[in-house]
């Protein structure tokens, strides 16, 4: 039982690292980035390409992954989302076009990675980092799991503290409440938009590298699955609430672990889809969301 809990904790941490960036961007500048999964995957893929050439330690790969993720995320914002928002006639049609544009943009890195790997899983076997398994009181835990959990919690706390305490965090939150008024108060929407996309991309890249270490290898299409799960985690916690994402990620991971161990068959994926439907139907502001968030 406790073994399941440890597994749920590390799975939830991966979800958290991934969903945190998505929620940051969605809750503040109002962009639901469907290319987030592709950015996540491509950052891990770029690290894989480099580590095949040069034998690097884990830290270097994490830095590479985060940088690639941030660069891609900023590129998506500049090349896709900004033009869409400038040309959209209202917020509603802009939202849908961003969803569609994100799906379109995501196809490019996915195609490149699938081309290079032949759609096969890739991993960091050439890295100098080695997975060790510790046995504590009869429970098995790997050093990667410890790292993932610690990093996820630390980063989540850091992001929450940044949003709550710093001036730029306040400015970003004000964009989430009322972008027009915030601009009038001297908040630079363009710069903050790029900044939050860069942070989100770095988080996606980081989680991509960590998940690859955790699982040993990932396939190019693993971003899509994770995207839906992260969406479920964000919705469950409440859009715009960072603490909500933390709770949502771990609750989702725990529920999936329970379903995985208690049922036979392939029902585990139904958990996240069911969570999305159920939350949207019965408590559309999520567990910690602001009541006034627009839901129509």
């Amino acid at each position, binding site marked *: 039982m406790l073994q399941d809990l440890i597994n749920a904790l590390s799975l939830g941490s991966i979800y958290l690292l991934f969903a945190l960036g998505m929620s940051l961007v969605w809750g503040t500048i109002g962009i*639901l980035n469907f290319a987030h999964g592709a950015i996540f995957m491509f950052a891990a893929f770029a690290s894989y390409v480099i580590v095949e050439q040069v034998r690097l330690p884990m830290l270097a790969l994490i830095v590479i992954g985060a940088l690639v993720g941030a660069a891609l995320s900023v590129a998506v914002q500049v*090349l*896709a989302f900004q*033009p*869409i928002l400038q*040309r*959209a006639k209202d917020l*509603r*049609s802009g*939202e*849908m*076009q961003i*969803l*569609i*544009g994100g*799906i*379109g*943009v*995501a*196809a*490019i890195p*996915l*195609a*490149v990675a*699938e*081309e290079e790997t032949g759609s096969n899983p890739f991993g960091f076997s050439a890295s100098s980092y080695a997975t060790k398994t510790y046995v504590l009181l009869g429970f098995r835990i790997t050093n990667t799991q410890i790292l993932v959990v610690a990093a996820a919690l630390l980063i989540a706390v850091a992001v929450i503290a940044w949003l709550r305490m710093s001036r730029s965090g306040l400015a970003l939150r004000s964009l989430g409440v009322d972008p027009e008024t915030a601009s009038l108060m001297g908040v630079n929407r363009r710069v903050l938009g790029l900044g939050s996309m860069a942070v989100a991309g770095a988080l996606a890249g980081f989680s991509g590298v960590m998940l690859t270490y955790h699982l040993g290898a990932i396939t190019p299409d693993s971003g*899509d699955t994770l995207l*839906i799960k992260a*969406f479920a985690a964000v*919705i469950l916690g409440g859009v715009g609430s960072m603490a909500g994402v933390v709770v949502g990620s771990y609750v989702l991971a725990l529920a999936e672990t329970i379903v995985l161990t208690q049922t036979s*068959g*392939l*029902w585990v*994926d*139904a958990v996240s*889809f*069911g969570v*999305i*439907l159920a939350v*949207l*139907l019965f408590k*559309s502001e999520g567990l910690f969301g602001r009541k006034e968030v627009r*839901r*129509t």
Partner: protein
Amino acid sequence: MTAWYDSNIILIQSTFVGLLTALSLQVPIRFGVFSFAGVGCYGVGAYTTAIIVIRLGWPAPLAMGAGMLLAAVTGYLLALVLSRLGGLYLGMATIAFDLIVTVVVANGGELTGGPSGLFGAISDVGTVHVALTSLVVVVLLALSERGRFGRRVEAVREDPELAAAMGVEVRYYRQLAFVISALLGACAGGFNVLLRTTIAPTDIGFSLVTLALTMIIVGGSRSWAGAFIGAVIFTWLPSVLEFSGQFQKVIYGVIVALAAIWVPGGLIGVVTDAYRSWQRSRRAAGPGDAGPDDGDRRTASPRAEGTPA
């Protein structure tokens, strides 16, 4: 001609199935309902048809009819349940529904064949049937884009509050969008399973949503013609792009991204805009129409357009 037809029969059939699938997403968008439930209903229709044909041995039209009926009921129930949601949230909820359908059929055991799906749904359905059905569907949809009904649908999409104030029952139109979308999706799914004789959970997942959405984004989401253009392009593009070899998927992605970002109205939107501006410039150049009151007339009601000066 017949040689070409024989060697491309699969692609020709796929074009019609693709058209019906794309229409199942295009119709709700035209009603202002951002629903992807058509793809889930494609799965419902395909599996119901396959199960009935394989297990009960009913004739194909009856089996497809049963599949479409079940899908229509599902669509109506979804419309009732999801009536509070709109925009992005409706889109995500219906994607969740589509994916739940794939998980359910993957866990259906004997009945649905589990992860490997169903085989051997053999019937005498051919290209003629799917082509004629598509023709009927397109004619009906083209009619629904005109006249009183077409204007009401436009009002429901562009300004639901205004439409309601003008006496249009917005709720009823939204439910109608769900049901039409479900019927079209189930029809496409039924035809696909009867033409290919197999169906598997991987055929109806997120990739089908992306493909159908891609078709109407590149073609244009305002009219059936956009869905048709998109279905033709994305059914035939892979064979046209064969020369590019390994970059095929990358080119595909670039086309979709460019269309989504720069041509939100799709190809049909570009053509319509070009035709309108050509008409306008012709009218402006015409005799007696370049008076000082020209600007006033252009801002007048759209119905005044085309009336001789």
